[in-house]
């Protein structure tokens, strides 16, 4: 009993979202291992080749195997965006709830700061961050986390504002509970649904920002790649209906839509 409870709390998601997330994580980890070819290997003299038995998803704009690159791309997209989103949302949610809880100066200062950050277009912030600190995976993750934190902050602050007025917060405060406990144990569990839905949306944005950054030349370093850049670098293949461009775009859609629907479902059940 002592064990089963916290475990259940730790995994607020039930069935579908958990399975889905596990599936993508599994794919992210094993993808590079099961890829038939190295991601940089030119395997065919035909570019934008259609689906064939040798190259299940055809070849890309340089004649590389799309399936292999897709597996590598999925891996880095999922891992990078997941880490960035989780970082952004945990920090944003914590601060948002704290601002709602503390009110007053803390709230004002934090909110003004976040409003300022959010008002700068995300692509610009990303560009500047990478231009200043160089392009590496930690910088990318941190930049994306910083860019999406204010949005998460805003959402959770709004959500928390209605919760902090509830009497159970009052009674916990009367007991003399610390802020950390109030935020994490009393308030957060009551907004997991909307927060998770928010996480899903932010994940979409992160995938998108990553691809835009990659396109502007500040994203992942070759031979690493992500789904957005795979779509983008093979965009010319669109005129030939090449799987090289369709496959990554579809993967993005399946990844993000599936995750969001699952998280939404969770939110509605709450």
């Amino acid at each position, binding site marked *: 009993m002592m064990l089963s409870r916290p475990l259940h709390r730790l995994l607020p998601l039930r069935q579908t979202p958990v399975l889905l997330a596990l599936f993508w994580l599994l794919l992210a980890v094993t993808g590079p291992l099961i890829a038939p070819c190295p991601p940089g290997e030119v395997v065919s003299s035909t570019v934008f080749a259609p689906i064939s038995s040798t190259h299940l998803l055809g070849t890309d704009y340089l004649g590389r195997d799309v399936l292999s690159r897709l597996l590598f791309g999925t891996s880095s997209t999922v891992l990078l965006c997941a880490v960035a989103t989780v970082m952004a949302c945990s920090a944003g949610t914590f601060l948002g709830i704290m601002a709602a809880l503390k009110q007053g100066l803390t709230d004002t200062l934090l909110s003004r700061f976040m409003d300022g950050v959010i008002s700068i277009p995300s692509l610009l912030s990303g560009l500047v961050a990478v231009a200043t600190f160089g392009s590496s995976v930690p910088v990318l993750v941190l930049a994306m986390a910083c860019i999406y934190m204010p949005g998460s902050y805003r959402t959770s602050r709004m959500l928390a504002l209605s919760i902090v007025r509830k009497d159970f917060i009052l009674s916990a405060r009367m007991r003399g509970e610390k802020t950390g406990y109030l935020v994490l144990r009393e308030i957060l569990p009551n907004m997991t649904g909307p927060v998770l839905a928010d996480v899903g949306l932010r994940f979409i944005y992160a995938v998108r920002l990553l691809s835009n950054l990659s396109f502007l030349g500040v994203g992942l370093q070759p031979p690493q790649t992500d789904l957005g850049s795979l779509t983008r670098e093979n965009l010319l293949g669109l005129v030939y209906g090449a799987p090289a461009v369709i496959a990554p775009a579809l993967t993005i859609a399946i990844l993000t839509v599936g995750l969001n629907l699952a998280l*939404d479902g969770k939110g509605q059940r709450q």
Partner: protein
Amino acid sequence: MTARLGEAIALRVGASLVSLVFVVVAVFFITSALPGDVAEALLGQAATPDAIAALRHSLRLDQPVLLRFAGWAGGLLRGDFGTSLVSHQPVLSMVHDRLLHSLLLAGITTLFAVPAALLLGTLSAIFRNTVFDRTISLLTLCVVSVPEFLIATLAVLVFAVELHLLPALASISDIHSIGSFLAAFSMPVATLGCVIVGQMARMTRAVMVNVLSSSWVEMAMLKGVSPAFIILRHVLPNVIAPLFNVIALSLSYLLGGVVIVESVFHYPGIASLMVDSVASRDIPLVQTCAIIFCAAYLLLTTLADIVALCSSQERTRT
């Protein structure tokens, strides 16, 4: 009561100004910290150390950062946004046209996207948890998740290249009639619409579901008021504030976040100006653009908050 409202509004506006000042200062120092400067960017491949040094000196880039900030901020207070380091033209005159173009595109997109999003969101809320609702939810998610350059390119391939119905570019200079105006704007607007309608519809649905489950909506139904009438007369006045917030957030995206649509359709808007100015390290221009985006965002959200303040003032028991 009105005095209290006025005070609340003044507080909100003041808070936004604080954010704006924060951004102004932050943007200056962040852009100053960017590697490279306009002298190097201008000379590009032809740069030699002494040429760079001379150009830097002539552009006063060799002054200390704080001195430059003081000069620039001083000008800003007098309403002078400075001169472009690249073109030597006043920044405001460079921004002027681009901003108008962006506002035009944003305006038209709003005109179509907002009603569409409100309609979709409202319908989803009315028929919540039905097949219709789930379908809309799925579709909007799909549209949001597909990168916009793909949507834009696909649209161009189909409508411009294959069908020859619409021009592939939205060139402002080619617009001479209503027809050409519609033709030029239809695809950029549709692409942008795809990006924001999904998000707006989802948020609208959430707001609507909340209101539709209130007991006064039930009461109106029990009075024999038809659903359409309930939405128009009873629900709308109550959701204006939250919906305005939804719209404000989407609109601020329409100014700053449309780089890709601008570049695919060759539309001279302010977002691409900003990316350009970052690339050429034209700091005064970068700062002006940043201030514009920030001000637009803050203006919209402040407006939304004020609308909320006014309507909640009307409602809350005091």
